[in-house]
């Protein structure tokens, strides 16, 4: 009698502790080995792009908070830049500096979520609490400035709604000082841990060509040897005036993606210090008409969100509402490479690889 051997089909998600939201993966397993993986998305689809066509330009900013909810400010900035380009709006210098400052704080907060959840995915639960302890400090800072902790809705077309609160700079510098020490603590706990290395090194290797072919961006691409960072290749706001390095690693494995993000946090601290040093005085908001009607045309903006290249495209026909909005979500593009990364991986590698892509489902499903 012939024994038929079939792969076991297992459904990971949409309710699963480590799919980081409502991602569903249909895995075909051979023992512990993954034979095939089919991601299913759409559980969080809200039709945001269509909803944006029904509202005046500036009313759409709160929607963007709900895209990548771990980096709401980056989304705010992306849509505001797009509208500014469409309408030819100038942004005061001080507002640009404030934007960069908040973006980098946001990047740290977002990468800390990655760090914490990545630790939990691999079984190092303590890392989660350490990372969230520091994220709390960033969120407190952002709350003091914007009044919100998750959905900030703070960037406006033509600047930012208000100046920084009194003594904000000192508090940020205090945080920078504390956080530098905490980064060393993370290194001692995770980076130098042999088990952590053996779980991440050589796992989920994304070759440079594949990363280019799939259009990966952000830390995903930079860990695969592609020196591509919007802040460098197409500087926006005042990123051309601050000095920082873009970490690029060649290995393309989970370990490299982890290291890139860790180094990005350190570079963010450098940017924050320079921005606070150089920030000029002045207005933070350009006066705009009550009814904002940009001339007919098409505008495209891109920012380096913590997850990669985040772009907005808006088409105007001269009326108060956009005719078409398109969002290029970095998580969506980065996730598309997941089935290729999972070929031949172990079940335990699934969470490591998925965690290292650092997806946010709010952005994927829009």
């Amino acid at each position, binding site marked *: 009698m012939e024994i038929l051997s079939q792969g076991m089909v297992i459904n990971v998600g949409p309710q699963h502790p480590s799919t980081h939201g409502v991602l569903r993966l249909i895995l075909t397993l051979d023992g512990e080995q993954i034979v095939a993986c089919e991601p299913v998305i759409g559980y969080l689809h809200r039709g945001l792009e269509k909803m944006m066509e029904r509202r005046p330009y500036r009313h759409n900013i709160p929607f963007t908070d709900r895209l990548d909810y771990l980096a709401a400010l980056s989304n705010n900035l992306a849509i505001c830049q797009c509208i500014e380009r469409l309408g030819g709006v100038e942004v005061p210098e001080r507002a640009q500096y404030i934007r960069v400052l908040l973006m980098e704080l946001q990047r740290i907060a977002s990468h800390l979520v990655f760090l914490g959840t990545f630790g*939990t995915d691999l079984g190092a639960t303590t890392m989660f609490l350490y990372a969230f302890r520091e994220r709390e400090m960033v969120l407190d800072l952002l709350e003091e400035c914007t009044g919100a902790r998750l959905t900030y809705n703070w960037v406006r077309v033509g600047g930012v709604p208000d100046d920084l609160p009194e003594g904000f700079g000192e508090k940020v510098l205090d945080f920078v000082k504390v956080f530098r020490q905490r980064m060393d603590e993370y290194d001692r*706990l*995770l980076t130098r*841990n042999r*088990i952590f290395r053996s779980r991440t090194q050589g796992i989920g290797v994304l070759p440079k060509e594949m990363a280019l072919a799939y259009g990966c961006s952000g830390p995903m691409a930079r860990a695969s040897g592609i020196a591509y960072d919007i802040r460098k290749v197409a500087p926006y706001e005042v990123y051309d005036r601050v000095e920082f390095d873009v970490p690029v690693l060649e290995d393309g494995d989970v370990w490299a993606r982890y290291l890139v993000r860790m180094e990005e946090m350190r570079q963010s601290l450098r940017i924050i210090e320079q921005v606070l040093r150089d920030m000029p005085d002045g207005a933070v908001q350009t006066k705009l008409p009550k009814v904002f009607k940009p001339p007919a045309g098409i505008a495209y903006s891109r920012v380096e969100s913590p997850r990669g290249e985040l772009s907005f495209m808006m088409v105007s026909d001269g009326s108060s509402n956009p005719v078409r909005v398109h969002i290029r979500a970095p998580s969506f593009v980065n996730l598309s490479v997941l089935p290729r990364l999972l070929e031949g991986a172990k*079940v335990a590698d699934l*969470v490591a690889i998925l965690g290292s892509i650092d997806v946010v489902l709010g952005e994927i499903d829009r």
Partner: protein
Amino acid sequence: MEAIVQFFRDYPLLWTLVKAVVLANFTLAIPLAVIYIERKVAGFIQSRLGPVHVGPQGTFQTVADALKLLLKEDIVPAGADKRFFYIAPYIAFVSVVLSFMVLPFAPGWVALEMNVAVLFVIGVSLFNVVSILMAGWSSNNKYSLLGGLRAVAQLLSYEVPMVLSVLVVVVYTGSMSLTGIIEYQVQHGWNIMHPPVMIAAIIYFVCALAEINRTPFDLPEAESELVSGFNTEYSGMRFALFFAAEFANNFFITAFAAALFFGGWDGPILPPIVWTFVKVFVMIFVFMWVRWTPPRLRIDQILRFAWQFLVPVSLANLLFAVALGVR
């Protein structure tokens, strides 16, 4: 009091019953303490407080949790293999109670004096593997099945070096009775003083972490991958029994180590029973410390570590011990 004890002692059957009841309840009660300590230690390591609300310093939290679990609905998933699903938690728990049976807490404080206690413990602890496989298989859940399979692969692999390192102690003391081993240590000094036993103790410690499914060997219940592993589908008291068995096993495995390597009840000034508990809780603390620090390994890494490193090393160590210590 004396009279009551004497009364029970006069009737062997009654006396056995008393011992059984005390032991089973002790096995159920110990997890409450260990879980509370675990939560507090975890909180301390993770810069938070742990339980604080129920009772002074949250001491009644685990009691409250146990009561809650007792009152919860007993859910059996559709398509589950009912017989196995029902008895798996009891087998897990009974295997721990059986091991406690031969454990001497202090001179004379042992439920059953057995001259092959070490062998007995190794035998009954394997029941645990059976129960995990039963639970994983009968749940009719793929995650549970994967967890169960992982658990069996892991526990069986680590059982080998563990037994080999326990044998080193047997070689040194020339006894398979736990009381005998401890009494030997009271006279000749703790076993841990001998180099081969030192190596054996380290191997035992690593294997013990794997035996009680703790990070870095907590694969069978790897939460982020398998939801909760073999006990995913369990609820209420059945889940509580698995949980109790795991933590009681945690207590037992350290008490066993204390008896084998650290002289059991032996120690100055304090009464023997206190020394047993001191040694056990120090080791449990180390276990918790390890648990909350590193990430977990992958199944192939775990098995490779067991078969390619621990087994050869413990075999060589056993030969080393025989060459040095045989009398």
